[in-house]
């Protein structure tokens, strides 16, 4: 069995995220972290590998992103991926969900995985959607927000929370599964794994290498256009109390609640 894990480099949570006013795109200059949701996908792949029910030959981390996105791949490899692929090309800049899903699917197609895993959302952008876009291109069944995954014979039994409670779904392989963060507690990479990550095979691909049609990607190939970027409607900032003396803090909270007649 071959597992591909889609990963993404996102802005560090502690860094303020900005939109570049002139291009209408996310300013990615400060980004430097593997999307935290993706670490759960890698961990899920590792648990399939170590679980003994399927013979996993290889876990391949795949990303699309600018030059410096290699750092996300090094992190992915330090967490257990055997090798990685970076799709990187100036022609991809400005790709929307439709274009990104198509491009990633072309890379995956060449790998012919039995299972594609990804995090349920990225910290910065395309919430929830990439897994289902990629799956339709690959003609694979898919499920998103999976929080439990058991390997069966050529299939997976998955659980997830949907609109009306928990659903249990059997899904035949090959399949695309996006996992929720409740599925596992990702391990920490060992120092040895961190040191060794840069030595593992990393293939860089341009769009031509992946057979991607240039007119279907990038800003030109995208099917949505940013018409305007506005600040959010103003909301009065709330009061903030820093807890230094807890008795005093509690007094302030009670007074605040009292003022609003919430303790009647």
């Amino acid at each position: 069995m071959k597992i591909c894990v889609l990963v993404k480099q996102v802005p560090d949570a502690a860094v303020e995220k900005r939109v570049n006013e002139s291009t209408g795109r996310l300013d990615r200059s400060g980004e430097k972290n593997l999307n935290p949701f993706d670490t759960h996908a890698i961990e899920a792949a590792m648990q399939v590998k170590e679980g003994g029910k399927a013979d996993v030959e290889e876990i391949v981390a795949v990303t699309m992103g600018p030059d410096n996105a290699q750092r996300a791949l090094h992190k992915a490899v330090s967490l257990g991926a055997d090798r990685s692929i970076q799709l990187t090309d100036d022609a991809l800049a400005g790709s929307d969900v439709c274009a990104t899903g198509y491009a990633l699917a072309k890379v995956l197609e060449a790998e012919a995985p039995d299972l594609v895993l990804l995090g349920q959302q990225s910290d910065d952008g395309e919430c929830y959607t990439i897994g289902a876009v990629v799956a339709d291109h690959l003609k694979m069944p898919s499920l998103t927000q999976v929080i439990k995954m058991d390997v069966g014979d050529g299939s997976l039994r998955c659980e997830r929370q949907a609109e009306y409670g928990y659903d249990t779904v059997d899904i035949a392989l090959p399949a695309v599964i996006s996992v929720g963060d409740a599925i596992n507690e990702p391990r920490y990479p060992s120092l040895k794994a961190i040191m060794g990550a840069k030595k593992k095979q990393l293939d860089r691909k341009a769009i031509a290498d992946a057979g991607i049609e240039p007119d279907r990607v990038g800003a030109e190939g995208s099917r949505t256009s940013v018409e305007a970027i506005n600040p959010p409607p103003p909301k009065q900032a709330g009061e903030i109390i820093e807890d230094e003396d807890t008795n005093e803090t509690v007094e302030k909270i009670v007074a605040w609640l009292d003022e609003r007649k919430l303790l009647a």
Partner: protein
Amino acid sequence: MSGILTYALHYGSEINKNSTGAISEAARLATEIGGEAHAVVVGEDVSDELCQSIGAYGASKVYRARAPEGLAQPVVDVMAKLISDRGYSYALFGGGLLGFEIGAGLTARLSAGVTMEVTDVKAVDGKLVAVRPILQDSSVVDSGYVGEPGIIIGRLNAFEADGSQDGGSTEVEDVEVELSEWSTKATMVARGEQRGADVNIEDADVLVAGGRGLGRADGFAELCEPLAEALGGAVAATRAVVDAGWYSYSAQIGQTGKTVAPKLYLAAGISGAIQHKVGMQGAENIVAINKDPNAPIFEFSDLGVVGDLNKIMPKLTEAVRARRGG
């Protein structure tokens, strides 16, 4: 025709509230761009009555297709065929998990533009523009579409349902769609399983909600329940802790849980992700206790307390008890 096609999710004999909201929104927008709003219902055995009921929200036609329920990919097959054969300009979805999956599937199938977490849709010169907050709601993007169709996926509760239309003339048409091979590879084993005790949080005036910042399952019994009792309210939870098995599913607020609007919402150890925010932002007063001063919840709380909830909550419980004479 500048028509808008929507998906109506149903469970038992009811149409989902976010779907009826999407249908009402589609009907309003269709009038502005000079078209009609139609809806799709997919299931094994959908009654005429259920289909007809959608008319009251403004759909002038309802398509009924026989296919497995509760899974996205069969619906993608049905909607893709209807959009291709009959030329809809837009597909609109209410907030929720299936809407995201179906919208994403259509994006790939039809090479269509998609916007998600949409909070508002505007009609401009006969075309639709989706309004979408990004980056933890720090900016709002107006997004247009290149070519047709455009896929619009709403944020939870973004669209208000208006069931006051006369749906008497709504046409119900059965459509037969051959499912893609891969759409038949997923099988629902059990749907809508409830986990944990059944609690009622929707009627409570006061909610004390616990998140991962509680640090442990016992945090609910030790910190949240006593404070909720002292305040005369109930306990709610975030998805993260429900999925982790710390608290009942029926107490869950947010994207796939419940939407509440109490007089007081006290969030303990909740970071305030968008998926949670959409379920509780209607609360009159929001108080947040969190040790991380950068937690997004402080951006929309009325009173934010930066500190250790293990220290603050027991003392607050005592003080509230003393004040309320309980």
